[in-house]
């Protein structure tokens, strides 16, 4: 992990905050109390607020009782009691299935899957139960109070089973929302929105950033709207679209490109399903070029969906083919992780070849 991090971000500059660009989350006023927080602490604060503001909310999952393996649930059981914050047996389909039933009775069930790599046993519950609960009942029942949190993505030493980015599987499922934050401030606001959204949400947390990313986070209760992308860096030559931890890498590429006279616009999609096509479309119509980058394997990745949509909508405005800089079509490798990753320089090369097409 250390080596990978040093490669990318010895000093981790978070996109959207380091350059004073506008934060959509900002309910800022002069008296707003902010605190420097890392990402897991911001998640923890959101969970505190969620439990505090709704007595019908519950937080549970494997090892959640003692604070969770990533410390996101620290202090919750002590504060809100073991009836509302608790360990579950080690069984993902049970965790999600239980959460669906709890949510269907009018509660908010915030469940933790310890790693996104282990979410697959719950796939049936998510796809066939959670996603269809409202539709199949004609809106007689819903499990909209369900939020599934899962740490995803590379950490430098995670190998096959602690590194995956499975978001694309879930983006193929009508009825759920898929949300991925890029920073502590975003994580808090988006998680509170996800928990309070009347639809089931799969919320992937970039575990690479849990400790590494530190940002000023307002202490109060605030929400960031779902399905609204944000332009976190304005530019005129090419549009870059990403989400989660990858934005940090993309931001570095944008900075390097700028030194070579290329002006990049960087968009944080935030919500992948249902996604904000309009913001991306408007940007590409302005820049004429699009690059998408994600850690997940390129084939069938969500980048393909964005690419196809933008081709449909912006065909005559495009100056170059849409470029994708993504993970490779191998299982996530351990020793070879530095080769697998969509690194800054891979992105920079793609920016240059797209602009010079």
């Amino acid at each position, binding site marked *: 992990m250390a080596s990978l991090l040093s490669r990318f971000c010895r000093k981790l500059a978070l996109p959207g905050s380091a350059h004073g660009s506008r934060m959509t989350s900002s309910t800022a006023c002069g008296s707003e109390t902010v605190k420097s927080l890392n990402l897991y602490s911001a998640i923890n604060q959101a969970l505190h607020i969620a439990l505090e503001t709704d007595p019908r909310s519950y937080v549970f999952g494997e090892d959640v009782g003692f604070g969770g393996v990533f410390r996101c649930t620290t202090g919750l059981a002590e504060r809100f009691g073991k009836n509302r914050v608790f360990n579950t047996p080690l069984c993902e389909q049970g965790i999600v299935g*239980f959460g669906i039933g709890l949510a269907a009775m009018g509660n908010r069930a915030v469940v933790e899957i310890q790693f996104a790599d282990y979410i697959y046993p719950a796939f*049936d*519950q998510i796809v066939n139960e959670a996603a269809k609960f409202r539709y199949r*009942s*004609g809106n007689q*029942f819903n499990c909209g109070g369900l939020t599934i949190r899962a740490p995803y993505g590379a950490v430098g030493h995670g190998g096959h089973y602690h590194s995956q980015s499975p978001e694309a599987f879930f983006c193929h499922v009508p009825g759920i929302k898929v949300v991925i934050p890029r920073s502590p401030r975003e994580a808090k606001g988006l998680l509170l929105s996800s928990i309070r959204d009347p639809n089931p949400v799969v919320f992937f947390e970039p575990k690479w950033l849990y400790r590494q990313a530190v940002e000023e986070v307002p202490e109060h209760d605030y929400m960031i709207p779902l399905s609204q992308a944000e332009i976190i860096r304005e530019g005129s030559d090419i549009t870059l679209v990403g989400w989660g931890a990858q934005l940090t890498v993309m931001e570095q590429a944008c900075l390097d490109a700028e030194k070579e006279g290329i002006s990049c616009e960087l968009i944080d999609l935030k919500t992948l399903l249902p996604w904000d096509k309009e913001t991306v479309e408007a940007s590409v119509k302005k820049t004429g070029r699009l690059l998408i980058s994600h850690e997940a394997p390129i084939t069938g990745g969500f980048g393909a969906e964005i690419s196809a949509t933008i081709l449909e909508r912006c065909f005559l405005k495009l100056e170059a083919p849409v470029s994708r800089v993504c993970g490779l079509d191998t299982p996530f490798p351990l020793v070879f992780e530095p080769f697998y990753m969509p690194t800054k320089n891979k992105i920079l090369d793609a920016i240059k070849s797209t602009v010079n097409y």
Partner: protein
Amino acid sequence: MAQHLKSSKSTFLNVLRHSLAFGSPSHASPHLRHNLPHGGPPSIKKVSPNPLTRLCNTMVDTLSSSHEDTNSQVMDFPGGKVSFTPEIRFISESNEERVPCYRVLDDNGQQLPNSQFVPVSKEIAVKMYSDMVTLQMMDNIFYEAQRQGRLSFYATAYGEEAINIASAAALSPDDVIFPQYREPGVLLWRGFTLQEFANQCFGNKSDYGKGRQMPVHYGSNKLNYFTVSATIATQLPNAVGAAYSLKMDGKDACAVTFFGDGGSSEGDFHAAMNFAAVMEAPVLFICRNNGWAISTPTSDQFRSDGVVVKGRAYGIRSIRVDGNDALAMYSAVHEAREMAIREHRPILIEALTYRVGHHSTSDDSTRYRSADEIEWWNKARNPLSRFRTWVESNGWWSDEAESDLRSRIKKEMLEAIRVAEKTEKPNLNHMFSDVYDVPPLNLREQELLVRQAIKSHPQDYPSDVPL
């Protein structure tokens, strides 16, 4: 590798013999006892390269350190104290006798002497019997409608009328049901009308599911009956979560979930049972063990003594019931419900029955089981005739009541089908509503595209769906 296994097996067996003898003075040979002055037999004190043997040596050492009082030795493992035994004795894979099946009525509907059961009033008993008849007649008529091509699909509950109706009768309307798809009788008991059943089966605009699911996928918010999904056993963990909510809210109610013998093989069964026990959730797991999962007999499904024995491994109180005995089902569910709510615990009920009908209208079960077998169950263990005998023996039912009921239900059913069939289909906009609480942009765009396609090619689309 195979050879290694063989040699270690023989060493292991030697150790077995020695330690068995060591731990069981009554069965030990004098020769072996003679060889045991302070510790284990010298022959197995040698350090073996085989890890299994080494483990056994260690066990023997530990045991021998106080062999006077071996059985009272306990160790505080995580999870509680566990006593030691000097015997290498595996828990048997089965009980010597199969778990007995609780029943009140014999095959002919006569009350068994000394049978325990919860008293049933005349009113309840008559409604139970009437609803069992109604369920069977509803199945007959919908089944025929499907054969005539008027319904796309149907699945009957033939043979399982007692499980359906008697369990519903023993519950409170506040108990929430997570059904599979062969329990429409619970809805019937709670007041779902034949018209409401027909609306769902025909997928018309009065169907609460808005025409989105195949026939028999009923659901009713008003009647606390969660909408059926065709996936097997996924409803079980959902029921546990709902039960936990009822407990947290201090409600005098439990969650009840139904599934089949096949469903007990799914991972969700395991997940739900384990969660329910750990979370101390008031939930009833009612397994309809009808012998067949489509064409798969229980002998190809599991090697356990059915499903009832699985409860114990999870720490769940369990009972096996004659599912074709309405009085037994009623009593067992009634008692289970009381325990679940009062003691905050799950209960497993295995109801033994027989699927007299085909799996569904897409199945011909005579291809994998004999017509004689089906007929035997239909006659010899018929849940309706058995219960009718008992109700009649109380003087609560007569041939005249029977024929009145049957002619009334037949008339109502035919009318329900007639109305449901001519009621228009749900509007096209219901294809896009309820995916989310409000349709997002992509669905609004797709609705427009579909409407344009209909304008261009109206002949491609059914004309009975209002636009």
